[in-house]
């Protein structure tokens, strides 16, 4: 009996050892599977939310993510913004390029296997036509991006796959601007030349992108399908994408919440709010993924013709007084940051704003200093002014009104729609205005801050020495090619605008969230610009587990 028991015990031990070994092997295999990069699985239809109707189909006439998001996948571009660093550029239709030392001449080499969706080959002649059309849009056709085209003095076709662009003047930021996601090739020469459509919705969706147009049900659905002849072998992974038109942000959220969308859409007002994120986490747990980026930052801008704002001490006092952490809580439900221009994650973001007086969380000393400055400027009892406000942005302006009360400043709102605001702003008919800034490069900063932009942050400062300095600094910085020097200058300009001269008061920069279901892989998020990285050729759907 005992011998048998011993034998059983030994056998059991041996058995357990074998089980343990197998288990350990299994475990380590499982670990290996998890650690190894996942192999993209082809197939499937991705369902994405889209704010309103994408009813303008000509990319030269797009001005909104509403049109752009679903149509990015139809049209490729010569070069595109890099990933993950969107301040760099990389080839799309173009395989490689050479730049002359004076930055005036660019020789581009196209990939050799590109075809339009209708089967016709894509050649340098198509690029030539695209540039001509961009420079001189036919009557009745608008080109919102003609500034980039105006820089191109000449395009010389060398052969079917090589062309040379000569600029009016060399500029380091040219390639970055050319890589703007809005510069899409949607105008096949063989379809457009001599029969230019007059309607911005009349472009026939023939591009060279990873997906082809399938159908568009106005008000409901924009659908694209896989382009089997896409010039990058193996891509795209998806069989197609359905962009659902959602007229209302709450409806958009309901669609995601009930699993009718795989990916929530990009667009101001359509991003997930803090309370929505909380609901999603509670209801869907790890079945959803969230990622965020910094889309636009809110700024209070001044018109120096209004007495108090010409005084540096008043502007500095406002910067010191503003409780930006409170603004993030009140305006953005806690999802935001207090910064200057460059958002966290942008290569040019260098200032640690959490330590800067006025931006830091601790307010007592800064507020005392703000009051002292106001008294010194002769405004001990404060003053009143009117904030020009776009109708959709009143929540931000109202917060400013409330916050500045403690400093003795009685602000009131003049609420108007965007076209009126823009007109009044360009004519300098305002005392203060709430506006947005966005960007990750010096060129984008120049777009927002150079006084030549009639609706820019400093448009009302044109001709004043403080702004002339900014113009000069921006012009000098954007003419540089050395990345380290550009980085140093970017820091100097931020320091000059926000801290030394306090030419504008940043309020906060919201952190916007997009959500997607767990099985969506390969989706690319931007750092700051929502129009970047909307292409879906790398996206794939893992089998639902």
């Amino acid at each position: 009996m005992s011998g048998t028991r011993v034998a059983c015990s030994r056998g059991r031990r041996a058995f357990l050892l074998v089980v343990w070994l197998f288990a350990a092997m299994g475990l380590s295999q499982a670990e290996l599977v998890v650690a190894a990069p996942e192999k993209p699985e082809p197939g499937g239809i991705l369902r994405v939310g889209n704010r309103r109707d994408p009813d303008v189909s000509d990319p030269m006439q797009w001005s909104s993510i509403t049109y752009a998001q679903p149509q990015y996948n139809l049209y490729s571009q010569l070069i595109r913004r890099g990933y993950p660093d969107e301040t760099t550029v990389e080839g799309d239709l173009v395989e490689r390029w050479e730049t002359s030392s004076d930055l005036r001449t660019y020789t581009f080499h196209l990939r050799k296997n590109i075809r339009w969706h209708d089967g016709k080959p894509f050649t340098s002649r198509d690029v030539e036509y695209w540039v001509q059309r961009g420079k001189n849009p036919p009557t009745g056709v608008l080109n919102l991006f003609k500034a980039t085209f105006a820089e191109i003095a000449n395009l010389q076709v060398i052969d079917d796959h090589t062309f040379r662009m000569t600029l009016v003047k060399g500029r380091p930021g040219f390639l970055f601007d050319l890589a703007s996601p809005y510069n899409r090739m949607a105008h096949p020469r063989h379809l457009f030349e001599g029969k230019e459509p007059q309607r911005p919705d009349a472009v026939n969706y023939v591009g060279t992108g990873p997906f082809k147009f399938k159908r568009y049900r106005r008000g409901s659905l924009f659908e694209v399908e896989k382009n089997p002849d896409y010039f990058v072998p193996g891509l795209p992974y998806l069989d197609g994408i359905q962009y659902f038109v959602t007229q209302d942000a709450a409806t958009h959220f309901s669609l995601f919440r009930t699993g009718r969308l795989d990916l929530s859409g990009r667009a101001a007002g359509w991003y997930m709010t803090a309370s929505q994120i909380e609901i999603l986490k509670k209801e869907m747990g790890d079945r959803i993924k969230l990622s965020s980026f910094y889309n636009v930052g809110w700024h209070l801008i001044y018109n120096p013709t209004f007495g108090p704002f010409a005084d540096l001490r008043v502007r500095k006092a406002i910067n010191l007084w503003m409780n930006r952490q409170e603004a993030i809580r009140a305006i953005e439900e806690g999802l935001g940051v207090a910064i200057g221009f460059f958002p966290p994650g942008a290569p040019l973001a260098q200032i640690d704003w959490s330590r800067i007086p006025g931006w830091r969380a601790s307010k007592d000393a800064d507020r005392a200093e703000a009051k002292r400055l106001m008294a010194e400027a002769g405004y001990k009892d404060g003053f009143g002014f009117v904030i020009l406000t776009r109708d959709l942005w009143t929540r931000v302006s109202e917060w400013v009104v409330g916050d500045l009360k403690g400093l003795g400043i009685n602000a009131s709102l003049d609420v108007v729609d965007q076209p009126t605001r823009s007109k009044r702003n360009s004519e300098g008919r305002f005392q203060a205005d709430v506006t947005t800034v966005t960007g990750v490069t010096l060129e984008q900063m120049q777009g927002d801050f150079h006084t030549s932009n009639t609706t820019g942050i400093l448009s009302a400062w044109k001709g004043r020495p403080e702004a002339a300095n900014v113009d000069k600094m921006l012009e000098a910085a954007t003419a540089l090619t050395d990345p380290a020097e550009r980085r140093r200058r970017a820091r100097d300009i931020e320091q000059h605008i926000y801290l030394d001269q306090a030419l504008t008061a940043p309020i906060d920069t919201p952190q916007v969230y997009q959500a997607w279901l767990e099985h969506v892989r390969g989706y690319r998020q931007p750092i700051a610009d929502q129009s970047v990285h909307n292409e879906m050729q790398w996206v794939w759907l893992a089998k639902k587990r």
Partner: protein
Amino acid sequence: MWKYMVKRLLLFVPTLAIASVLVFVVMRVLPGDVARAILVSRETPGVIASENDIRQLREQLGLADSLPVQYLGWVRGLLVGNAGVSLYTRRPVAEIIGERLPVTLHLTVYTVLISVLVSVPLGALAAVKQDRWPDHLVRLSTILGLATPGFWIALLVLLLLVVVFRWVPSPVYYHLWEDPKENLILLAFPALILSWRFSSYQARMVRANLLEVLRQDYIRTAFSKGLADRPIVMRHALRNALLPVLTLIGGELTALMSGTVILENIFNIPGLGDALINAMRQRDYPVVENLLMFYMTFTLTINLVVDLVYAVINPRIRFA
């Protein structure tokens, strides 16, 4: 009757003329400039429009002419059947209306059908059972229907669907002839919500009218002759009590055509209201102006049709 009809049709002309001036002037005096709205978008980094660009676009869109010239151009276009094009998409407005109208008509017809099917029996029941629990129940439900805003109920319904059933209708709209099931599923909820309000009006109207008719001498005579209750109510009283409801339905049709805006938004229905909201947001003058003119013409026509039908149904009515 023909004379009456021609007179009413002739009255259309000055009414629409005055309306067109009002619509045109109101749209143009509103602050905002569509050329600027198209060109100046803070959403698009790098798009910087100069005043010259804005002026050129304004000229391209025909907005540089004086207001009277623009107005006359618009009216001239309407008279020859050309309602103009959208300033944003350059699509003919007639095409936009033609595309959206069937959607709103679907919703309107469903709503009216449900309202009539619900309100007439309920109103009759409440009248016949006056001051008893069915009457109290109907009155309570109709008061609630009148007092509760449709959009609020819509939001609650949507929330209920999401939270309890983890389901919402598909966001893609299909016409009845394309996919009857999807069409009914998407439109059922807004139609039910809208019809609650309208059936409340109608049920109260049916109840009040029926009570009045039931007190008429001829009904009392019918009762005294020993006729059964049901034939008296159904055959004699209800028919007469329903006549004013017809006028109400006419009003409902016009109200629904323009009154489904918010529900269309909430339930993602691409109807006329949705088109109007988008066009107003964008200051797309031709779309807004022509849509409003369409609504007015529709209202006038429906009112005329209701009056004529009323006369056909009720022989006591003669047109002067």
